């Protein structure tokens, strides 16, 4: 098998070289202007909340971090979530009292995660233009499975984490070694007659809490 694989590798590379002949690109071209020079977004928080709302996700804007816990509690109550999984390093004040919080430490089995009503996390970045949350497994986010299996995802975004556009976000994420998940609204499908339906797999409900100040 190992020999066959290396033979295939050599042959595919040889075919590419034969196909290109002397038409090879000498070097990668400079960054495409259009992608790099995406226009700035004037009021990222307003744009972000509007765009998240367009996906029929819930959005709550609070003035500072002290109000986050109450907003998270309200979001969980809206969806009648009795318990929530939380990353081990989620800021303490974000988990409301009166809800059974399960720390994912040690890691919970997938089957258990699938029974939990909700998950509460932070995020790495957000994109105003597209209403996108970006999870990179960093502080307050946990591993990918915890934001995938519960039915409700409550995600807390700091205003300073919101960038304007997709290229800005990609630039900020350069060099990240961890897996990334870009979340734009709840799970959806258009597979039946191109009619959009929210909530197939993954969290059927997305609630975003934006905190203007840390």
């Amino acid at each position: 098998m190992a020999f066959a694989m290396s033979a295939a590798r050599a042959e595919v590379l040889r075919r590419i070289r034969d196909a290109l002949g002397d038409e090879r690109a000498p070097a990668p071209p400079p960054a495409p202007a259009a992608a790099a020079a995406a226009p700035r977004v004037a009021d990222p928080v307003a744009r972000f909340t509007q765009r998240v709302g367009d996906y029929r996700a819930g959005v709550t804007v609070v003035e500072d971090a002290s109000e986050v816990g109450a907003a998270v509690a309200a979001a969980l109550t809206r969806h009648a979530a009795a318990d929530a999984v939380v990353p081990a390093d989620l800021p303490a004040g974000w988990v409301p009292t009166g809800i059974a919080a399960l720390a994912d430490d040690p890691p919970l089995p997938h089957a258990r995660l699938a029974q939990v009503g909700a998950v509460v996390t932070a995020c790495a970045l957000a994109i105003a233009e597209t209403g996108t949350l970006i999870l990179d497994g960093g502080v307050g986010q946990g591993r990918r499975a915890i934001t995938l299996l519960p039915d409700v995802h409550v995600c807390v975004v700091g205003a300073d984490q919101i960038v304007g556009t997709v290229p800005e976000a990609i630039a900020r994420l350069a060099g990240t070694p961890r897996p990334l998940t870009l979340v734009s609204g709840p799970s959806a499908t258009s597979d039946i007659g191109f009619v959009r339906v929210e909530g197939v797999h993954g969290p059927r409900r997305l609630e975003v809490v934006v905190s203007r100040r840390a």
Partner: protein
Amino acid sequence: MSGFASAARAGLDDPQLRRNLRQATTTIRAKRDAAVAEVDDWEGLRTAGAAIKDAALLALDAHLERLEANVVAAGGQVHWARDAGEANAIVTALVRATGADEVVKVKSMATEEIGLNAALAAAGIAAYETDLAELIVQLGDDRPSHILVPAIHRSREDIRALFERELGETGLSTDPAELAGVARRHLRERFLRVRVGVSGANFAVAETGAICVVESEGNGRMCTTLPDTLITVMGIEKVVPRWEDLGAMLQLLPRSSTGERMNPYTSLWTGVTPGDGPQAFHLVLLDNGRTTALADAIGRQALRCIRCSACLNVCPVYERAGGHAYDATYAGPIGAILSPLIDGFERHATLPSASTLCGACYEVCPVKIDIPSVLIHLRGRVAREHGAPPSERAAMRAMARVLGTRRKYELAQRALRTAGRPLSRDGRLERRLPGPLKPWTTFRDLPAPPEQTFREWWRSR
């Protein structure tokens, strides 16, 4: 009639299919137009997308080697496959090595192209499609007919009946939300149980080794996150040189594809990450005809394709004939050029002619593939290398001779008038002429050649 023309009959004769397609493509066209109109410099973005893909293709060997080195450095394994059989053998061996006899799959055109499910089934491994449309196709033992929405030819009523028959459900409505709910219940248990996931890739970044899967339903996250082992089968043309290239591609793809600002879920991973997701990752790099396409200097732009399917949704031929008429993994305008280029002209010789060259596909293509020009180029290759019908060749040569001199041309004009006269009534030719004009006159009238050509009028002034 052969090839596309005869395969199109089934679709043309199915009014339900035509209604489904018309309704679906009308909906998605409007969404795409709105999503594109929001972008200030869409044209510049398209140009960037084309440049990125061209940069990748024109140094494809170097980018693939770089991708491989970065995936391996991050704990993944890379396998190379010259063709479908080799790719299927690699995936089968990898699944067997885990001891598993089932896999969950993200929708992937590459695995569709190589017939992976059948190959796995032959090896006693069950492959479960998890994308809703792919599930519908799989349950119905059907063929996909659209790149993005493989079950676009199925109505809600069809899908309800299929779910009731195959999944033991009863009393379902035709509400898409309820039908999607059935898929959720049906697949959730499999996501939690199955230990091997199989995916394709939308992009792979040579510079970092990151693999990118773009999806909507969350089934992609399930398949790429929950299993112990993840196997990604990727056409070699999916590589992009740099991380920042994603900044353009992740704008172009969702807006062109589902007409959204961003698709619900985009997953990116590099090799394996301790404590998060699959702890074994295999990347299978698939040629399967792509290097043949690369060797065609005009046709190679087809390899820029990011499988958004915008060209299908605007194509008047696709809308009427349906995806199955193309008898290929890739349907629609892009399929009409990609299929002969990567899968050979023997099977797909009539596809380059299955277009009016109306240009709607080129107009929407996010990576500016000039599909009409490639179609014309491939028509030439069919005629030169693969044998056009002798009658066509003879007719084309004869006409070229006639048009080559004024004298012959004017003689032919007069001959046409003389020949048309006995067949003319009220300024038009009799219906249903024989010979090469039969297909035209079966459906449309032809004007009788007028008593005076333009040039005769000009001279008579």
